[in-house]
């Protein structure tokens, strides 16, 4: 009679070592190279900190004086709202362009393709100058019947101030790049998802909004974060058309007092702070769109744990961290 909890199987082949192997302790592999690398990095980092602190020519007191000065903060605010406005409008346009590109209508498809092709082909700086100087090409803009009567017209030079040229140029550019990011995300969603939605009798718009776009987001968000951070810094290009953003405000000051380096440090530090905040935001958005992709029992590792996990200096493995959590 077989005991109920015993396997019914052939006897297993045994070796003398088996018992000792089973009793042995598991030792994870040592990585001396990592420790050496970490030591080298630490020394280099210490040198960097040392020189930044002790090199008097950084003039940190000047950095401190200007860091939250009135004109710098004004420039910062302009950089921020220009980035926000361009990103919002550009991304919405981009979604529309992506939808056009993927639609069944060949006219919409070609329009979207042509737009993206043209805009991506022209350097951003050239686009900005183009919009800024458009008055030399079309001195007047009019609304009316094609080739016929004009109802209203306006002098282009009055319309396209520096800030409007900056907004239009950056938005046009961002829309093209967003369109490609969104299209890539949409293509990554399985065909079966929209088929199932069609079979349920959902309208095309609802399928796009409720089914396809949300599932494209995990593929869209990381590239969009990249685009947004790129845009934040690319806004500094508007200084060439005399828009007073963060960089231009700094330039205006150091052109008078020649404290070039400390003032560039002011701008740099602000860009670093903003980029850090955006990166943190991106982390949380990515976590939101990952819902439904992991079990409820796993709430996901926190930002701090991920930071630690990605620092091999501490020699911790993911398993160690899981044990800590």
């Amino acid at each position, binding site marked *: 009679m077989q005991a109920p909890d015993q396997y019914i199987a052939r006897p297993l082949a045994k070796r003398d070592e088996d018992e000792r192997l089973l009793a042995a302790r598991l030792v994870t592999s040592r990585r001396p190279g990592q420790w050496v690398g970490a030591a080298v990095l630490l020394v280099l980092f210490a040198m960097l900190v040392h020189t930044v602190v002790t090199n008097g020519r950084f003039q940190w007191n000047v950095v401190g004086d200007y860091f939250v000065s009135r004109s710098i903060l004004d420039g910062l605010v302009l950089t921020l709202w220009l980035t926000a406005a361009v990103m919002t409008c550009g991304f919405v346009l981009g979604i529309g362009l992506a939808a056009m590109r993927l639609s069944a209508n060949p006219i919409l498809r070609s329009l979207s393709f042509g737009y993206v092709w043209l805009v991506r082909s022209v350097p951003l700086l050239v686009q900005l100058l183009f919009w800024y100087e458009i008055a030399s090409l079309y001195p007047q803009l009019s609304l009316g019947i094609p080739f016929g009567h004009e109802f209203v017209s306006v002098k282009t030079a009055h319309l396209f101030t520096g800030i409007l040229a900056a907004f239009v140029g950056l938005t046009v550019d961002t829309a093209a790049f967003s369109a490609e990011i969104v299209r890539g995300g949409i293509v990554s969603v399985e065909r079966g*998802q929209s088929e*199932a*939605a*069609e079979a*349920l*009798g*959902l*309208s095309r718009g609802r399928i796009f909004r409720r089914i396809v776009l949300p*599932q494209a987001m995990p593929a869209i968000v990381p590239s969009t974060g990249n685009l947004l951070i790129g845009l934040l810094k690319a806004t500094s290009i508007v200084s060439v058309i005399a828009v007073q953003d963060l960089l231009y405000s700094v330039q205006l000051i150091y052109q008078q007092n020649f404290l070039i380096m400390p003032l560039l440090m002011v701008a740099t530090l602000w860009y670093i702070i903003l980029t850090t905040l955006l990166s943190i935001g991106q982390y949380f958005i990515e976590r939101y769109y990952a*819902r439904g992709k992991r079990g409820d029992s796993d709430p996901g590792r926190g930002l701090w744990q991920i930071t630690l996990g990605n620092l091999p200096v501490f020699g911790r493995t993911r398993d160690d961290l899981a044990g800590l959590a």
Partner: protein
Amino acid sequence: MTASEESLPLVRIRGLRKNFGSHRVLDGIDLDVREGEVTVLLGPSGSGKSTLLRCVNHLEKPDAGFVEVAGELIGYRYDRSRNHGGRLHELPHRQVTRQRARIGMVFQQFNLFGHLTVLENIIEGPVAAGIPRKQAVTTAGELLDRVGLAGREGSYPRQMSGGQQQRVAIARALALQPRLMLFDEPTSALDPELVGDVLAVIRDLAASGMTMIVVTHEIGFAREVADTVVFLDDGRIVESGPPASLLTSPRHQRARAFLAAVL
């Protein structure tokens, strides 16, 4: 018109043709499905079973012929006012959408919406169709109970086994109270031990009088549940009839060869 609508079959398919490029997938299909009956489509892979099923709710547009469900042409409007037998005009998308909402469909790969919970998956169709959310939620609860998944409203598809996902997909298709259900190889993507639960749900549905067209390779299931078995080969119906006779003594040589290979 001599026959009233009640005496007509729920589904009438006539002269249906479909090409993918130069390949003729459906080559003149004629088929009736009566209300309350279960029709099982059998045939080797590539014989056109799934395409036929997908033509019924217009996921595929036929190149010729027509599909009629409950007396209504699917995907087209007939204009008889012209000479030469009139014209079939494509329906606007909104009307096709309305027609589809009354035909439930279950896919081989389940195709549940991964970013939505089980409840959200089930109420998506009804809410889009204008049914109040509260009512849709109540119905969803009843449907989950019916497929043996009571209380799983809050789960995400990825947290469930394939068999559970497919039962949610069935509940989702039933949420719009369809008159017709289409099953496209509903158990082919499942591990063998999970097939039984899904078949049991479909069996219950058949017993409740739902009209169904089922593409499957489960011969035993076909024998038990089907009223009619239709055997397709190379885009044509080569034999159809009650399972008792077709599955035990098929007359067509292709059907014989297929059954000999799968049994």
